[in-house]
């Protein structure tokens, strides 16, 4: 038991290290990129030099990036004589520790407020899509493996490959085109003016808006989960311990339940964790097609506006959620597969 606890602590510590690394990387990434708050917010050429300076002071970008780092950016370079506590890096770090992500160059609102709501919307979309994709993918994969090398199997295989290889935005547009014919909303999260209605009607409205993007998301990821489930299950079913189980008198159902699924699900866990990382990039395309007010949409808008604090915050949230998901998958894996713990 203590061995297991030590493994968990070690993995959590490593995850925290990774987060720290991401924080540092995230900071420098946006200091290398061109762009300036004065240019991002106000595109008026009549802006005076004093006004520009005032804006830069307000956002703290007048300070040196870091001390002893001359060559990083010639405009904002620091020197070793600078007080290390009076640099952008230190302010960034100390603000983050206090949960402060800075202000948007464009809207002047706190980044944390802007992203919180967006993150929640994305989580809603991703979790609905992932749950459907995993459940359906597993069921179809199981069925295909069960009927291996029959017409059903080949049809499922073909369909899975097709679904998996479809570009997200393309499927999104097709679904939009198709769904609008059935009176489904073609964009956004809620119908305008819905807030005066009772809560259950608001939820129903969100559900209607969620339908098409979730469908697109489910179809694409279901294909992947199905293919992996099928091949993983076929692998396991050819193992000797399945034959042993048969010889002991287990029924096909018991073999599937107690022996095959438990072992076949292991590779799926890994794919799931890795997918969460790709999911965010996939979701940017999906959210822009469906005008879903999620994190992906926020990244897209912020990129167009050179709104670096928002991007920085969004990147941070994505990185943390991916690291966290991997940590969870890692720990679950060691719980599911006893061979993993003993290292």
């Amino acid at each position, binding site marked *: 038991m203590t061995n297991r606890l030590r493994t968990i602590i070690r993995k959590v510590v490593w995850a925290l290290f990774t987060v720290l690394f991401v924080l540092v990387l995230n900071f420098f990434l946006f200091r290398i990129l061109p762009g300036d708050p004065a240019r991002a917010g106000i595109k008026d050429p009549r802006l005076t030099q004093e006004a520009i300076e005032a804006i830069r002071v307000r956002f703290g970008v007048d300070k040196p990036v870091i001390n002893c780092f001359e060559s990083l950016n010639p405009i904002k370079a620091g020197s070793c004589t600078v007080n290390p506590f009076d640099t952008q890096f230190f302010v960034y770090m100390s603000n983050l520790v206090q949960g402060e992500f800075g202000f948007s160059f464009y809207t002047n609102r706190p980044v944390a407020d802007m992203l919180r709501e967006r993150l929640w919307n994305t989580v809603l979309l991703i979790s609905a899509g992932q749950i459907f994709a995993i459940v359906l993918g597993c069921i179809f994969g199981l069925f295909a493996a069960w009927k291996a090398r029959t017409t059903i199997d080949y049809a499922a295989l073909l369909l899975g490959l097709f679904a998996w290889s479809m570009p997200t935005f393309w499927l999104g547009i097709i679904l939009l085109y198709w769904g609008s014919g059935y009176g489904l909303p073609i964009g956004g999260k809620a119908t305008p003016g819905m807030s005066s209605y009772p809560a259950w009607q608001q939820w129903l409205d969100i559900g209607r808006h969620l339908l098409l993007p979730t469908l697109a998301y489910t179809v694409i990821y279901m294909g992947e989960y199905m293919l992996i489930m099928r091949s993983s299950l076929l692998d396991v079913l050819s193992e*000797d311990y399945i*034959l*042993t189980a048969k*010889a002991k*008198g287990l029924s096909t159902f*018991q073999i599937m339940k107690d*022996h095959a699924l*438990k072992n076949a699900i292991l590779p799926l866990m890994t794919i799931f964790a890795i997918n969460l990382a790709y999911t965010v990039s996939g979701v940017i395309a999906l959210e822009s097609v469906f005008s879903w007010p999620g994190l992906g949409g926020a990244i897209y808008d912020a990129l167009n506006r050179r709104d670096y604090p928002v991007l920085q915050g969004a990147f941070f949230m994505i990185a943390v959620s991916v690291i966290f998901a991997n940590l969870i998958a890692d720990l679950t894996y060691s719980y599911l597969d*006893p061979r993993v713990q003993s290292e």
Partner: protein
Amino acid sequence: MITQKHILEVKNIKKHFQVGRPSIFGQDARRVHAVDGVNFHMYRGDVLALVGESGCGKTTLSMLLMGLEESTDGQIFFEGNDITRATRAERKRLSQRIQMVFQDPYESLNPTQSIEEIVSEPLVIHKLAKDPIERRLRVVNALEDSGLKPAADYLKRYPHELSGGQRQRVVIASALVLEPVLLVADEPVSMLDVSIRAEIINLLADLRRKRELTVIFITHDLGTVGYFADRVAVMYLGRIVEIGNTLDVLKNPKHPYTKALLSVIPVPNPRLRKKREILQGETPNPINIPTGCRFHPRCPVAIEACKISDPAFIEVERAHDAACLLLVK
């Protein structure tokens, strides 16, 4: 050998596997004659060693006995009942009486189950020993009988934490926990280190004495047979070519194939070494079985008649049968 009644009787059992699909030109699909007419019987408490080179159909035969493969033709009687076409429910009941030890202990244990789960699973499946304490007791008993002492040290461990020999003991324990009458051991030692082989064979010999087990011991190694088999059956290309009491077969082999097999067993004493008889050629493809005696293309003493007529089994001595034309004359 309490009662001289046959516990197992196998009559002309056949298993042909289809290779590919039938051709569109009306030819039949090609067939692998994995087991091609095997006959033998066993008495209670007997140990029969089934010997033959790889690909001769030993494993397929054991699968047929376990009902893991469906036979193409022939019958298997167990305790007087025909079990060849047993239904699923009958099979489940049979699996309490017939158990199997598989060849590869590294592959035949589910890596996600603890030893206790593995050994107690048959009890759960067959709804025996529902009381947890009684179940635990039977699991511990089976483990200790299989030589894993003290069993308490092993219950909570996982297969990957054990050595090959220990794993094979777990496999044996999970077969024994149902207290079967017949144990089919399919090359139980071939994947183990030589040093462990003797231990596992001694264990099987002990268990057989203690639990009055009937054992079918499948091996490709004639050298290990003498240790504990009462009778030996030599298989070649899907058929038994010679069967008899172990001493008779080892000391006085009748079939040229058995003679060849025996002559290549390493003998420690150089003075006792006889001339080795190395068989020429490869085992024929089981898709195209040679005409006549299936051994004739490799047989050192084959005559012209061997190419035409398939030899019948004849009793050359008391309880010692062989299938060779030369023995008829």
